[in-house]
């Protein structure tokens, strides 16, 4: 059997997509049963995606791909392993089963390995938009052309991407579990350069109609113009107003700290801190795949239904997320956040939603005597895993705020800042939005005004 869709074909019906992937799963389960495999789990993922990339006010790369991956996990006598292939004929699927068995057989027994879960019930989510799936290279090229024309008109240089994708996923196992999910995804990102100054805007959504490329181009263009003639300021502690993308790329580094396995391994910054006032009382965080601004399947890598979990309540870490294995070790119930087995990391919350506030960016600026407005952060890395000190740079638009208004652009700073301290120093919160950056996967976070943010050095632009 092979997947018969042609490259670049428009979206097929949900029923058709599910039926096609389910037939691959059924074939694997039948083949595994025929050779006496005790337990088998199958994941099938299909992606059709395209990305138009532009720079110097012209398209310079333009790509499309169509991939199918079938991943088989067998479990025999307390041993398990995974084999993955992108070939869907019976011989290749049989070879993947045999490879998984051979890998599994080579290891010692794992007494903690659990039997596969049986049938589960899932809450439905609708995240597939035909208009996104049907986006053509010509559609993307026309939007890019308009953005580039704006850059030329303004004496600027544009670079960025316009992409669209549709994914179909399904999983099943030999105990009768079956789950399926599909979504669409569009991204427009643009950097506008004016001389040595630059600024940036980016959005992503399931529905391409929710993205307005020209509005983003205009925003980046206007900010790039304001970013010229940047002043060099002294490093030190500043009040900062982080736009949502900047917040996202920092707090995104917290996600794995909420994994029960990370605490069991003593590598989470929340070890010895659960139940304590770690963050400010204005910080509450849930993991919620069902939130209207989130994307993602309603089940985890083991097929367990994802649950909404309150992680932080008014600054106090309250709960963790659990896979089946870490839940058993901690005598808790799984929350549906496990990764595909076998793995050493366990689980993680992948759909963080921060509670927001009501302050607009303008109100944050107006209330600031002296501070910095940050568009975006870049190359963020962890310096200290327990105090959660992160380093990185500002990028594409850093602005000085004085007496309630933006007065000039500033040269980019390096920061060395503890996220724990930062989330104790939040003075104002904007409404939570679906933010997108480059360091973390998309989450729902607000803009934040934060006092005493630590910039350690300045660069040359």
């Amino acid at each position, binding site marked *: 059997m*092979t997947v018969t869709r042609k*490259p*670049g074909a428009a979206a097929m019906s949900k029923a058709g997509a599910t039926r096609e992937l389910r037939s691959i799963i059924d074939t694997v389960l039948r083949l595994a049963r025929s050779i006496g495999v005790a337990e088998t789990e199958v994941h099938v993922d299909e992606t059709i995606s395209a990305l138009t990339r532009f*720079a*110097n006010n*012209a*398209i*310079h790369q*333009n*790509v*499309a*791909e169509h*991939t*199918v991956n079938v991943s088989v996990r067998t479990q025999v006598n307390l041993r*398990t392993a*995974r*084999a*993955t*292939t*992108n*070939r869907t004929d019976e011989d290749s699927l049989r070879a993947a089963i045999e490879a998984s068995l051979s*890998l*599994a057989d*080579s*290891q010692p027994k*794992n007494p903690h390995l659990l039997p596969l879960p049986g049938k589960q019930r899932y809450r439905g989510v609708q995240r597939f938009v035909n208009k996104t799936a049907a986006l053509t*290279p010509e559609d*993307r*090229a026309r939007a890019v*052309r308009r953005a*580039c024309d704006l850059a030329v008109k303004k004496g600027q*240089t544009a*670079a960025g*991407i316009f992409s669209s994708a549709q994914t179909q996923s399904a999983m099943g196992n030999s105990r009768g579990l079956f789950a399926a999910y599909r979504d669409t995804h569009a991204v427009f*990102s643009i*950097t506008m*350069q004016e001389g040595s100054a*630059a600024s940036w805007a980016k959005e992503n959504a399931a529905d391409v109609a929710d993205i307005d490329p020209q509005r983003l181009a205009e925003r980046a263009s206007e900010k790039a113009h304001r970013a010229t003639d940047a002043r060099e300021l002294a490093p030190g*502690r500043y009040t900062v107003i982080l736009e949502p993308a900047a917040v996202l790329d920092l707090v995104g580094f917290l996600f794995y700290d909420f994994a029960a396995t990370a605490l069991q391994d*003593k*590598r989470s910054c929340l*070890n010895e801190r659960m139940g304590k006032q770690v963050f400010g009382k204005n910080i509450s965080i849930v993991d919620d795949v069902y939130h209207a601004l989130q994307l993602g399947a309603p089940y985890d890598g083991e097929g367990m239904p994802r649950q909404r979990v309150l992680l932080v309540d008014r600054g106090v870490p309250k709960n963790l997320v659990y896979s089946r294995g870490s839940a058993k070790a901690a005598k808790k119930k799984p929350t549906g956040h496990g990764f595909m087995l*076998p793995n*050493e990391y366990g689980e993680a919350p992948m759909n963080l939603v921060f509670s927001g506030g009501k302050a607009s960016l303008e109100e944050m600026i107006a209330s600031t005597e002296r501070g910095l407005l940050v568009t975006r952060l*870049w*190359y963020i890395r*962890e310096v*200290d895993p*327990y105090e959660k*000190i992160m380093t990185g*740079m500002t*990028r594409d638009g850093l602005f000085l705020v004085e007496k309630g208004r933006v007065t000039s652009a500033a040269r980019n700073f*390096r920061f*060395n800042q503890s996220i724990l301290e930062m989330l104790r120093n939040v003075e104002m919160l904007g409404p939570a939005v679906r933010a997108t950056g480059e360091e973390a996967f998309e989450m729902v976070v607000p803009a934040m005004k934060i006092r005493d943010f*630590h910039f*350690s*050095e300045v*660069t*040359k*632009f």
Partner: protein
Amino acid sequence: MYDLATAALDTAKIRGASYADVRVMHLRQRDLTTKNGQVGTLAQSESIGIGIRVLANGAWGFASTDRLTREGVAACAAQAVSIAKASALAKREDVVMAPENAYVDSWQSPFRKDPFELPLETQLALLLAADAEMRRVKGVTLTETDMQFRKIDSWFASSIGSRIHQRKMITGCGIVATSFQGDEIQKRSYPNSFGGQHALQGYELVESLDLLKHAPRIAEEAVALHAAAQCPQKTGTLILGGSQLGLQIHESVGHPIELDRVLGQEANFAGTSFLTLDQLNKLRYASDIVNVVADARPEHGQGLGTFAYDDEGVPAQCTDVIKAGQFRGYLSNRETAHLIGLQRSSGTMRTESWNRLPIIRMTNVSLLPGTWTFDDLVADTDDGILMETNRSWSIDDRRYQFQFSTEIGWEIKGGKRGRMLKNPSYSGITTEFWNSCDAICKREHWTLWGTPNCGKGQPMQTMGTGHGASPSRFRNVRIGTAFSEQ
């Protein structure tokens, strides 16, 4: 495979492509990890497909598929041409390619032991034994080990007549001990952090590392770091171990010389470069003793940037990047070479997989060995800090200002290595830093380190790069900045 590739080229030509190249690739990978004495990941994967790049109406298009039938490949080629024609709707000028010869060749990276043919039980037993050695040390709270093997076959065909088959065998291996105590987490890795050492070798790489010998040492160091003194904040003399210097080269030399960055093609994601075209042959990049090359040739070593031909069908080359401190060369491809006055690409187009477009990539960007023995270098240092094994790395989007931290440091006083230091870090401006280099250790201390996780491009591609380096000394460096005011 060449039949399918030829079918794709034929379709592209019929549909209006003025140039086309095709990569059929078959990638096999095996991953083994352990954690705290248990097997963690145990998985293997394979992926095979075709990527077709075409030039039509003066603009690029690329499409890929895993449907390896004549029908599937023809449809993919037609899609690539259609995409190229759409690209032409927003072009400013036609793409111009530097001339290149056609090659018909086959090459395999040398290896002695195929890890896919060796008993998996032996490989797991070694990792579990190293894991156990680390767990014997009191105070260690987490132990991790890993091995990764990749075998990549690629069949390249182009409309100028090239037909090139290459097979690469890649091996990686490393171990990590972590200790949580009080209010800090300390970690030591061997032979390098973030997955260990990676090279274009077979299982002989794993055997050469002697994991069991080093496991107790790094475990003891991870625990000892809790009681070590904090790295001071000062401006002073810094000696970098080879693996950390390899990453320093990667970030502050390798990326800035990528010509696509210089020309603004990566401005939206990876960033640009301070090495604007007017700097070539003029900029004093480093001190006189610094010589850096980008060398993909097998004679440079079995690095992650070693090959016979790049993914644009250009033979592997050695390019002078920094010669006696002067900036001499960029990494280019057939599209950009003419912009810096070259008649030919420097051969650095590389792709992660069949479903990704080749882009300009580092090959083996290496600091050539100097003249010092390591012992003489330490003995010659009155007051300095030796830093080893990367813990964090960050640099701005034009590659001026950087900050690195390492897992461990050692105070050097009066020409002798003294007490251990924890949380070491340093920072600086790229050209100021490289101009402060006053000593480089000789060939016997030189290792071609592998960086397996270099991300670039949209969609993101992960690529392995090589960086030869030996311990070296730098003066007047800002030290301890990462923990200032914390």
